Protein backbone atom coordinates (compact mmCIF):
# COMPACT_ATOMS: atom_id res chain seq x y z
CA UNK A 1 0.00 0.00 0.00
CA UNK A 2 1.24 3.42 -0.91
CA UNK A 3 1.51 5.67 2.13
CA UNK A 4 0.05 9.04 1.19
CA UNK A 5 0.47 12.26 3.16
CA UNK A 6 0.11 16.00 2.80
CA UNK A 7 3.08 16.16 0.42
CA UNK A 8 2.03 13.55 -2.14
CA UNK A 9 -1.77 13.39 -1.74
CA UNK A 10 -2.41 15.69 -4.66
CA UNK A 11 -0.16 13.82 -7.07
CA UNK A 12 -1.02 10.29 -5.96
CA UNK A 13 -4.76 10.67 -5.35
CA UNK A 14 -6.32 13.87 -6.67
CA UNK A 15 -4.40 14.10 -9.94
CA UNK A 16 -4.19 10.36 -10.60
CA UNK A 17 -6.46 9.16 -13.41
CA UNK A 18 -5.15 5.77 -14.57
CA UNK A 19 -7.43 3.78 -12.29
CA UNK A 20 -9.70 4.37 -9.28
CA UNK A 21 -7.84 5.16 -6.04
CA UNK A 22 -8.76 3.60 -2.72
CA UNK A 23 -7.64 5.45 0.43
CA UNK A 24 -7.67 3.77 3.85
CA UNK A 25 -7.86 6.56 6.46
CA UNK A 26 -6.50 5.16 9.72
CA UNK A 27 -4.87 6.38 12.92
CA UNK A 28 -2.39 5.17 15.53
CA UNK A 29 -5.07 4.89 18.21
CA UNK A 30 -7.79 3.32 16.09
CA UNK A 31 -7.83 -0.33 17.16
CA UNK A 32 -10.40 -1.28 14.56
CA UNK A 33 -8.27 0.26 11.79
CA UNK A 34 -5.26 -1.73 12.91
CA UNK A 35 -7.30 -4.97 13.08
CA UNK A 36 -8.56 -4.41 9.54
CA UNK A 37 -5.20 -3.56 8.04
CA UNK A 38 -3.87 -7.07 7.23
CA UNK A 39 -7.15 -7.88 5.48
CA UNK A 40 -7.01 -4.65 3.50
CA UNK A 41 -3.49 -5.60 2.39
CA UNK A 42 -4.93 -8.90 1.14
CA UNK A 43 -7.50 -6.94 -0.87
CA UNK A 44 -4.65 -5.10 -2.52
CA UNK A 45 -3.15 -8.44 -3.61
CA UNK A 46 -6.52 -9.40 -5.06
CA UNK A 47 -7.61 -6.14 -6.69
CA UNK A 48 -4.36 -4.19 -6.98
CA UNK A 49 -4.25 -4.48 -10.77
CA UNK A 50 -7.55 -2.62 -11.11
CA UNK A 51 -7.45 -0.29 -8.13
CA UNK A 52 -4.64 1.79 -6.67
CA UNK A 53 -4.39 1.19 -2.90
CA UNK A 54 -3.26 3.98 -0.56
CA UNK A 55 -3.30 4.47 3.18
CA UNK A 56 -3.28 7.74 5.07
CA UNK A 57 -2.26 8.07 8.71
CA UNK A 58 -4.62 10.73 10.02
CA UNK A 59 -2.63 11.11 13.25
CA UNK A 60 0.13 12.66 11.16
CA UNK A 61 -2.05 14.37 8.54
CA UNK A 62 -4.95 15.75 10.51
CA UNK A 63 -5.58 18.85 8.43
CA UNK A 64 -5.54 16.87 5.21
CA UNK A 65 -8.04 14.37 6.64
CA UNK A 66 -10.38 17.10 7.81
CA UNK A 67 -10.07 18.83 4.42
CA UNK A 68 -11.26 15.54 2.91
CA UNK A 69 -14.18 15.71 5.39
CA UNK A 70 -12.90 12.72 7.32
CA UNK A 71 -13.60 13.11 11.03
CA UNK A 72 -13.99 9.52 12.16
CA UNK A 73 -12.05 6.28 11.86
CA UNK A 74 -11.86 4.00 10.06
CA UNK A 75 -13.00 5.74 6.87
CA UNK A 76 -12.45 4.31 3.39
CA UNK A 77 -12.86 6.47 0.30
CA UNK A 78 -12.79 5.62 -3.41
CA UNK A 79 -11.64 8.41 -5.70
CA UNK A 80 -12.25 8.38 -9.45
CA UNK A 81 -10.39 11.03 -11.46
CA UNK A 82 -9.63 12.86 -8.23
CA UNK A 83 -13.28 13.08 -7.19
CA UNK A 84 -14.77 11.23 -4.25
CA UNK A 85 -16.92 8.47 -5.74
CA UNK A 86 -17.90 6.57 -2.58
CA UNK A 87 -17.22 6.91 1.14
CA UNK A 88 -17.51 4.28 3.85
CA UNK A 89 -17.86 5.98 7.23
CA UNK A 90 -17.04 4.00 10.43
CA UNK A 91 -20.62 2.84 10.98
CA UNK A 92 -20.67 1.23 7.52
CA UNK A 93 -17.56 -0.85 8.20
CA UNK A 94 -18.11 -3.94 10.31
CA UNK A 95 -15.92 -6.45 8.56
CA UNK A 96 -13.51 -6.46 5.65
CA UNK A 97 -16.34 -7.73 3.42
CA UNK A 98 -17.94 -4.29 3.63
CA UNK A 99 -14.76 -2.80 2.20
CA UNK A 100 -14.43 -5.50 -0.44
CA UNK A 101 -18.01 -4.88 -1.59
CA UNK A 102 -17.21 -1.24 -2.22
CA UNK A 103 -13.97 -2.04 -4.03
CA UNK A 104 -15.64 -4.62 -6.30
CA UNK A 105 -17.99 -1.94 -7.64
CA UNK A 106 -15.01 -0.07 -9.06
CA UNK A 107 -13.36 -3.07 -10.69
CA UNK A 108 -15.39 -3.12 -13.90
Amino acid at each position, binding site marked *: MLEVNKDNFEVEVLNYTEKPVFVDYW*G*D*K*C*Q*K*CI*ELMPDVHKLEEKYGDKIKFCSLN*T*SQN*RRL*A*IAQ*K*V*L*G*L*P*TMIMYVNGEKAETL*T*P*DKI*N*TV*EDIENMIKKFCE
Partner: protein
Amino acid sequence: MSHIYDIVIIGGGPAGLSAGLYASRAKLDVLVIEKEKFGGQAATTAELENYPGSIENCTGPALVERMRKQAEEFGTTFSKDEIVEVDFFDDIKILKGRKEEYRSKAVIIATGAEYRLAGFKNEIELRGRGVSYCATCDADFFEGLDVAVIGGGDSAITEALYLTKFAETVTIIHRRDSLRAAKSLQEKAFNNPKIKFIWDTVVEEAKGDEILESLVLRNVKTGEISELAVNGVFVFVGLEPKSELFKGKVEMDDRGYILTDRNMKTNVEGVFAAGDVVQKSLRQVITAAADGAVAAVAAEEYINEKFNK
Protein backbone atom coordinates in the same frame (compact mmCIF):
# COMPACT_ATOMS: atom_id res chain seq x y z
CA MET B 1 -17.92 -34.37 9.43
CA SER B 2 -16.46 -31.20 10.75
CA HIS B 3 -14.55 -30.94 13.98
CA ILE B 4 -16.58 -30.83 17.20
CA TYR B 5 -15.27 -28.35 19.74
CA ASP B 6 -15.99 -28.69 23.44
CA ILE B 7 -16.94 -25.04 23.71
CA VAL B 8 -17.42 -22.36 21.11
CA ILE B 9 -17.54 -18.83 22.48
CA ILE B 10 -19.26 -16.19 20.36
CA GLY B 11 -17.59 -12.84 21.01
CA GLY B 12 -13.99 -11.89 21.79
CA GLY B 13 -14.45 -9.20 24.43
CA PRO B 14 -13.46 -9.54 28.10
CA ALA B 15 -16.26 -12.08 28.78
CA GLY B 16 -15.31 -14.28 25.85
CA LEU B 17 -11.56 -14.03 26.47
CA SER B 18 -11.95 -14.83 30.14
CA ALA B 19 -14.19 -17.80 29.31
CA GLY B 20 -11.54 -18.92 26.80
CA LEU B 21 -8.83 -18.68 29.45
CA TYR B 22 -10.76 -20.74 32.01
CA ALA B 23 -11.92 -23.32 29.48
CA SER B 24 -8.48 -23.83 27.95
CA ARG B 25 -6.90 -24.12 31.40
CA ALA B 26 -9.39 -26.94 31.98
CA LYS B 27 -7.88 -28.58 28.86
CA LEU B 28 -11.04 -28.18 26.86
CA ASP B 29 -10.99 -27.72 23.11
CA VAL B 30 -12.18 -24.14 22.87
CA LEU B 31 -12.68 -21.65 20.06
CA VAL B 32 -13.44 -17.93 20.37
CA ILE B 33 -15.17 -16.44 17.33
CA GLU B 34 -14.96 -12.69 16.83
CA LYS B 35 -16.44 -10.88 13.87
CA GLU B 36 -14.85 -7.50 14.23
CA LYS B 37 -12.14 -6.57 16.70
CA PHE B 38 -10.99 -8.56 19.71
CA GLY B 39 -11.60 -6.80 23.00
CA GLY B 40 -15.10 -5.54 22.29
CA GLN B 41 -15.99 -2.20 23.77
CA ALA B 42 -12.98 -2.39 26.10
CA ALA B 43 -10.71 -2.15 23.05
CA THR B 44 -11.99 1.34 22.37
CA THR B 45 -11.96 2.52 25.98
CA ALA B 46 -9.26 5.03 26.77
CA GLU B 47 -8.49 4.03 30.34
CA LEU B 48 -9.71 1.19 32.50
CA GLU B 49 -8.53 2.32 35.86
CA ASN B 50 -11.30 0.47 37.69
CA TYR B 51 -10.11 -2.98 36.64
CA PRO B 52 -8.19 -4.49 39.57
CA GLY B 53 -4.49 -4.82 38.90
CA SER B 54 -4.72 -2.55 35.91
CA ILE B 55 -2.61 0.35 37.12
CA GLU B 56 0.31 0.55 34.75
CA ASN B 57 -0.56 0.78 31.09
CA CYS B 58 -4.27 0.50 31.83
CA THR B 59 -5.57 1.50 28.42
CA GLY B 60 -8.39 -0.66 27.09
CA PRO B 61 -6.43 -1.96 24.07
CA ALA B 62 -3.42 -2.89 26.24
CA LEU B 63 -5.57 -4.74 28.78
CA VAL B 64 -7.53 -6.76 26.23
CA GLU B 65 -4.38 -7.62 24.31
CA ARG B 66 -2.96 -9.09 27.54
CA MET B 67 -6.22 -11.02 28.06
CA ARG B 68 -6.06 -12.40 24.55
CA LYS B 69 -2.41 -13.46 24.82
CA GLN B 70 -3.10 -15.12 28.16
CA ALA B 71 -5.99 -17.14 26.74
CA GLU B 72 -3.92 -18.06 23.68
CA GLU B 73 -1.04 -19.20 25.90
CA PHE B 74 -3.27 -21.86 27.45
CA GLY B 75 -4.53 -23.12 24.12
CA THR B 76 -7.60 -21.07 23.26
CA THR B 77 -8.01 -20.91 19.49
CA PHE B 78 -9.45 -17.94 17.66
CA SER B 79 -11.42 -17.39 14.50
CA LYS B 80 -12.34 -14.21 12.67
CA ASP B 81 -15.85 -14.88 11.47
CA GLU B 82 -19.39 -13.65 11.88
CA ILE B 83 -22.03 -16.10 13.06
CA VAL B 84 -25.22 -15.62 11.08
CA GLU B 85 -27.35 -18.53 12.24
CA VAL B 86 -27.45 -20.80 15.28
CA ASP B 87 -29.08 -24.14 15.93
CA PHE B 88 -29.20 -24.99 19.63
CA PHE B 89 -31.78 -27.74 19.30
CA ASP B 90 -29.62 -30.87 19.53
CA ASP B 91 -26.86 -31.95 21.91
CA ILE B 92 -24.30 -30.82 19.34
CA LYS B 93 -24.83 -27.12 18.72
CA ILE B 94 -24.38 -25.80 15.19
CA LEU B 95 -23.17 -22.27 14.46
CA LYS B 96 -23.19 -21.10 10.87
CA GLY B 97 -20.59 -18.46 10.13
CA ARG B 98 -19.96 -16.43 7.00
CA LYS B 99 -16.75 -18.39 6.44
CA GLU B 100 -17.52 -21.83 7.90
CA GLU B 101 -19.80 -23.90 10.07
CA TYR B 102 -18.84 -24.68 13.66
CA ARG B 103 -20.05 -27.51 15.88
CA SER B 104 -19.66 -27.78 19.63
CA LYS B 105 -20.88 -29.48 22.78
CA ALA B 106 -21.50 -26.19 24.55
CA VAL B 107 -21.85 -22.56 23.49
CA ILE B 108 -21.11 -19.40 25.44
CA ILE B 109 -22.80 -16.29 24.08
CA ALA B 110 -20.56 -13.31 24.82
CA THR B 111 -21.60 -10.95 22.06
CA GLY B 112 -21.75 -7.92 24.34
CA ALA B 113 -23.52 -4.67 23.81
CA GLU B 114 -23.01 -1.62 21.67
CA TYR B 115 -23.60 2.07 22.06
CA ARG B 116 -27.10 3.38 21.78
CA LEU B 117 -27.93 6.27 19.46
CA ALA B 118 -28.90 9.53 21.13
CA GLY B 119 -31.69 10.00 18.61
CA PHE B 120 -31.14 13.57 17.39
CA LYS B 121 -31.72 14.73 13.82
CA ASN B 122 -28.81 14.03 11.41
CA GLU B 123 -27.10 11.77 13.96
CA ILE B 124 -26.72 9.00 11.38
CA GLU B 125 -25.98 11.30 8.44
CA LEU B 126 -23.07 12.95 10.26
CA ARG B 127 -21.56 9.78 11.77
CA GLY B 128 -17.85 9.71 11.11
CA ARG B 129 -18.14 13.35 10.09
CA GLY B 130 -18.10 14.82 13.55
CA VAL B 131 -20.56 12.53 15.33
CA SER B 132 -18.60 9.80 17.10
CA TYR B 133 -19.09 6.95 19.54
CA CYS B 134 -15.39 6.22 20.06
CA ALA B 135 -13.18 8.81 21.72
CA THR B 136 -9.99 6.76 21.43
CA CYS B 137 -10.57 6.31 17.69
CA ASP B 138 -11.37 9.88 16.83
CA ALA B 139 -9.97 12.19 19.54
CA ASP B 140 -6.90 12.97 17.44
CA PHE B 141 -8.93 14.93 14.93
CA PHE B 142 -10.11 17.40 17.51
CA GLU B 143 -6.80 18.70 18.76
CA GLY B 144 -7.33 22.35 19.60
CA LEU B 145 -11.00 22.20 18.59
CA ASP B 146 -14.27 22.31 20.54
CA VAL B 147 -16.23 19.14 21.22
CA ALA B 148 -19.31 18.07 23.13
CA VAL B 149 -20.04 14.87 25.02
CA ILE B 150 -23.61 13.64 25.51
CA GLY B 151 -24.29 11.63 28.67
CA GLY B 152 -23.69 11.63 32.41
CA GLY B 153 -22.58 8.09 33.24
CA ASP B 154 -19.13 6.57 33.79
CA SER B 155 -18.41 6.19 30.07
CA ALA B 156 -19.39 9.74 29.23
CA ILE B 157 -17.22 11.25 31.97
CA THR B 158 -14.23 8.93 31.39
CA GLU B 159 -14.23 9.73 27.70
CA ALA B 160 -14.77 13.46 28.32
CA LEU B 161 -11.68 13.47 30.53
CA TYR B 162 -9.72 11.66 27.83
CA LEU B 163 -10.87 14.19 25.23
CA THR B 164 -9.48 17.09 27.28
CA LYS B 165 -5.99 15.85 26.30
CA PHE B 166 -6.80 16.86 22.73
CA ALA B 167 -9.69 19.28 22.50
CA GLU B 168 -9.68 22.92 23.51
CA THR B 169 -13.02 22.64 25.31
CA VAL B 170 -15.22 19.67 26.16
CA THR B 171 -18.85 20.52 26.87
CA ILE B 172 -20.80 17.79 28.64
CA ILE B 173 -24.49 17.92 27.74
CA HIS B 174 -26.65 16.00 30.18
CA ARG B 175 -30.42 15.67 30.32
CA ARG B 176 -30.49 15.77 34.14
CA ASP B 177 -29.09 18.23 36.68
CA SER B 178 -26.55 15.83 38.20
CA LEU B 179 -24.17 13.12 36.98
CA ARG B 180 -24.61 9.39 37.48
CA ALA B 181 -20.87 8.68 37.12
CA ALA B 182 -18.65 7.50 40.01
CA LYS B 183 -17.87 10.29 42.49
CA SER B 184 -14.13 10.15 41.80
CA LEU B 185 -14.76 10.73 38.11
CA GLN B 186 -17.17 13.56 38.84
CA GLU B 187 -14.56 15.25 40.98
CA LYS B 188 -11.97 15.04 38.20
CA ALA B 189 -14.44 16.45 35.70
CA PHE B 190 -15.54 19.34 37.92
CA ASN B 191 -11.90 20.25 38.54
CA ASN B 192 -10.85 20.12 34.90
CA PRO B 193 -10.73 23.65 33.48
CA LYS B 194 -11.40 22.42 29.94
CA ILE B 195 -14.72 20.80 30.86
CA LYS B 196 -17.96 22.77 30.87
CA PHE B 197 -21.44 21.51 31.67
CA ILE B 198 -24.84 22.15 30.16
CA TRP B 199 -27.48 20.63 32.45
CA ASP B 200 -31.10 19.57 31.86
CA THR B 201 -30.51 19.65 28.15
CA VAL B 202 -30.91 17.33 25.18
CA VAL B 203 -29.54 17.56 21.65
CA GLU B 204 -32.28 17.98 19.07
CA GLU B 205 -30.26 18.26 15.89
CA ALA B 206 -26.77 18.22 14.44
CA LYS B 207 -26.13 20.83 11.79
CA GLY B 208 -23.39 21.00 9.23
CA ASP B 209 -22.60 20.83 5.54
CA GLU B 210 -20.86 17.44 5.15
CA ILE B 211 -19.15 17.84 8.53
CA LEU B 212 -20.60 18.81 11.89
CA GLU B 213 -20.69 22.52 12.66
CA SER B 214 -23.17 22.95 15.52
CA LEU B 215 -25.73 21.30 17.77
CA VAL B 216 -29.26 22.50 18.42
CA LEU B 217 -30.02 22.11 22.13
CA ARG B 218 -33.27 22.09 24.06
CA ASN B 219 -33.54 22.71 27.78
CA VAL B 220 -35.95 20.06 29.08
CA LYS B 221 -37.14 22.23 31.97
CA THR B 222 -37.66 25.57 30.23
CA GLY B 223 -38.07 24.41 26.63
CA GLU B 224 -35.53 27.00 25.57
CA ILE B 225 -33.74 26.29 22.28
CA SER B 226 -30.09 27.26 21.76
CA GLU B 227 -27.24 26.46 19.42
CA LEU B 228 -23.73 25.33 20.35
CA ALA B 229 -20.92 25.54 17.81
CA VAL B 230 -18.75 22.39 18.02
CA ASN B 231 -16.51 20.44 15.67
CA GLY B 232 -17.27 17.09 17.23
CA VAL B 233 -19.85 15.39 19.42
CA PHE B 234 -19.28 12.13 21.28
CA VAL B 235 -22.36 10.15 22.25
CA PHE B 236 -22.35 7.98 25.40
CA VAL B 237 -25.98 7.48 26.37
CA GLY B 238 -26.06 3.81 27.24
CA LEU B 239 -26.02 0.41 25.66
CA GLU B 240 -28.03 -2.00 23.63
CA PRO B 241 -27.44 -5.78 23.75
CA LYS B 242 -26.15 -7.48 20.62
CA SER B 243 -28.59 -10.36 20.88
CA GLU B 244 -30.61 -10.14 17.66
CA LEU B 245 -29.24 -13.48 16.43
CA PHE B 246 -30.59 -15.32 19.47
CA LYS B 247 -34.16 -13.98 19.47
CA GLY B 248 -36.53 -16.90 19.86
CA LYS B 249 -33.60 -19.23 20.66
CA VAL B 250 -32.89 -18.30 24.28
CA GLU B 251 -34.94 -16.39 26.82
CA MET B 252 -34.45 -12.62 27.00
CA ASP B 253 -36.01 -9.67 28.73
CA ASP B 254 -38.00 -7.11 26.77
CA ARG B 255 -34.87 -5.04 26.06
CA GLY B 256 -33.09 -8.03 24.53
CA TYR B 257 -30.75 -8.89 27.42
CA ILE B 258 -30.32 -12.66 27.81
CA LEU B 259 -31.64 -14.22 31.01
CA THR B 260 -29.30 -16.57 32.89
CA ASP B 261 -29.09 -18.17 36.31
CA ARG B 262 -26.17 -17.58 38.68
CA ASN B 263 -24.07 -20.10 36.76
CA MET B 264 -24.66 -18.17 33.52
CA LYS B 265 -26.91 -20.92 32.13
CA THR B 266 -29.62 -19.85 29.73
CA ASN B 267 -32.91 -21.72 29.48
CA VAL B 268 -31.38 -23.92 26.75
CA GLU B 269 -29.26 -26.89 27.78
CA GLY B 270 -25.61 -26.44 26.87
CA VAL B 271 -26.00 -22.74 26.08
CA PHE B 272 -24.49 -20.19 28.43
CA ALA B 273 -24.20 -16.41 28.25
CA ALA B 274 -21.68 -13.98 29.74
CA GLY B 275 -20.87 -10.29 29.83
CA ASP B 276 -22.79 -7.24 28.69
CA VAL B 277 -25.34 -9.23 26.71
CA VAL B 278 -26.70 -10.72 29.96
CA GLN B 279 -29.41 -9.10 32.06
CA LYS B 280 -27.67 -7.69 35.16
CA SER B 281 -27.15 -4.48 37.08
CA LEU B 282 -23.47 -3.69 36.49
CA ARG B 283 -21.85 -3.83 33.04
CA GLN B 284 -18.11 -3.46 33.50
CA VAL B 285 -14.99 -5.27 32.29
CA ILE B 286 -14.68 -6.95 35.67
CA THR B 287 -18.23 -8.29 35.70
CA ALA B 288 -17.84 -9.46 32.10
CA ALA B 289 -14.61 -11.29 32.97
CA ALA B 290 -16.26 -12.83 36.04
CA ASP B 291 -19.24 -14.01 33.99
CA GLY B 292 -16.87 -15.58 31.48
CA ALA B 293 -15.09 -17.56 34.19
CA VAL B 294 -18.35 -18.77 35.73
CA ALA B 295 -19.78 -19.70 32.33
CA ALA B 296 -16.65 -21.66 31.34
CA VAL B 297 -16.67 -23.69 34.55
CA ALA B 298 -20.41 -24.34 34.29
CA ALA B 299 -19.96 -25.40 30.66
CA GLU B 300 -17.14 -27.74 31.67
CA GLU B 301 -19.37 -29.39 34.28
CA TYR B 302 -22.16 -29.68 31.75
CA ILE B 303 -19.88 -31.35 29.19
CA ASN B 304 -18.54 -33.81 31.77
CA GLU B 305 -22.00 -34.86 32.81
CA LYS B 306 -23.56 -34.96 29.39
CA PHE B 307 -20.83 -36.38 27.20
CA ASN B 308 -18.19 -38.04 29.36
CA LYS B 309 -20.21 -40.52 31.36
